[in-house]
């Protein structure tokens, strides 16, 4: 029990000592830039018409490493901040091609890869009231997105073609994101002020977010690039 009290006391000291660091409401910002990484594993194998698990068979259980850049424009800042944004990312997954049934079995001496470029048109709400008014360095946020994911498949370094069909296309979908940002200004208030005066960066954050996306042309047949995954990153507000 005493240890829990000590922890609470330390947290209070930390918060109160940093009071004022982010409480400056005059620090208006219009734009946010996010850089993020996460593991993206498309739910390809859940496509109803499939009789097997092609993603698992080719790439195993592992996910793709997804890198994304997002830019948001804050349009309304009364109680929290509301804005719109766009993002673009890239992920690829390499595995070994499989020897065709009828020619043998096992792994072939060629690589194959699935590559995707997730694009998002986003609506963003950032509940930064806690940080702005109560000096709690946490900013919960939520996003809703229209998603477009161009994809293509290579084998042996070239675009794969099967019976005249080229292995590339694009999938529409939608997604929701929930996350929380940790306002870094609280930990280095002086540095944060230098950032603001020298570079125009009003706030900087570390964040984690959970992404829930259905990207299968709104339930149509075909490649299902839906996913549920975590992203982690760094963001700045100007």
């Amino acid at each position, binding site marked *: 029990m005493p240890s829990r009290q000590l922890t609470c006391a330390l947290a209070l000291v930390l918060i109160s000592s940093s009071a004022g660091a982010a409480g400056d409401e005059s620090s208006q910002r219009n734009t946010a830039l996010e850089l993020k990484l996460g593991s993206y594993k498309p739910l390809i194998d859940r496509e109803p018409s499939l009789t097997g698990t092609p993603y698992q068979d080719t790439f195993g259980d592992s996910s793709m490493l997804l890198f994304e850049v997002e830019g948001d424009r804050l349009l309304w800042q009364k109680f929290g901040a509301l804005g719109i944004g766009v993002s673009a990312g890239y992920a690829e997954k390499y595995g070994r091609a499989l020897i065709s049934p009828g020619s043998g079995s096992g792994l072939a001496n*060629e690589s194959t890869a699935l590559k995707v470029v997730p694009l998002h048109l986003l609506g963003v709400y950032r509940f930064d009231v806690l940080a702005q008014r109560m000096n709690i360095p946490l900013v919960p946020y939520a996003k809703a997105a229209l998603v477009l994911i161009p994809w293509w498949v290579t084998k042996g370094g070239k675009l794969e073609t099967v019976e005249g069909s080229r292995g590339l296309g694009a999938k529409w979908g939608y997604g929701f994101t929930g996350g929380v940002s940790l306002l870094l200004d609280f930990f280095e208030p002086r540095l944060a002020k230098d950032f603001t005066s020298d570079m125009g960066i009003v706030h900087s954050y570390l964040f984690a977010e959970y992404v829930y996306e259905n990207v299968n042309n709104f339930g149509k047949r075909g490649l299902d690039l839906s996913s549920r995954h975590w992203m982690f990153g760094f963001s700045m507000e100007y």
Partner: protein
Amino acid sequence: MRYSFPIALALMLSSSALAQTIQLQIDNSNKVVVSPRQCDTTRLISWTASTVAGWCTDLQIWVTAGECGDSPGTGDTPQFTASFQSTDRTFQFQVKDLPIFHQADAGFMCGDTTINQVHKICAAAKFAGTFGTCSNVTRGSNPPTIEYRGKPPPAPTITSLLEQDSALTVEVSASSDVITFHVQVREAGAGDFVNALDFNASAGRGKVEGLTNGTLYEVRVVGEDAAGNLTDPSDIVQGTPVKSDGFYATYRREGGADLGGCGDISGGGMDWRLLLIGLGFLPLLWRRRSCRRDS
């Protein structure tokens, strides 16, 4: 005080000596390799000098199979003499005139396929030293080389042969003198080998495509050096291309309904152009806010 003038003069002359440099090239390069088939070809030596002020002899240029000295040695041919006033600063010679073919006891004829020999292109001139004596020698810096390469490098080795979809990828190792590999292929035991692929030796591997899956092929590799000499063929290795499925083929084989292409975009019930139009509005929103702030 009375020594100051000679000291100053000596310093001046020695400083000009330090500045003297002669640069040579052969065929506009620093290194040339020739083969026995090129005995009658002509090669071009060119020279430049940082300054010719103070030269008191003509420039001598020669080719040697040894090291460059202050003057040509016995058997160092061809030799040329250039006036420092000359405007044409080039000389020509034929490969068969290299010293290795002109030494009385060497016993080699141009075209010999048993020897390799590196020759250096040398130059030297004298210029006025301290007190005006014609005694200081300047040599060509970084002498370029011409290598007569009669012996081809040893045969390359096929280190692996990967059986792929309608293709065979061959990995090869060879002497560093080899700059190009020629991959030769034939159906096992049938007909002559046909050159199927050439690739740069620095790549280490090459892919022969357009083969028939399920057919046994024999593969061998011939190396080529900078002089154009061909090595003996490597040992023959056999391989059979095998059909394989990449991710998309596996997906389709297992019942995947996506036919690829961009046609499926509109198949989703939404025109993809709508998104582009939507994205097009974003700059307007940016601009509107900027205008409001400015006003």
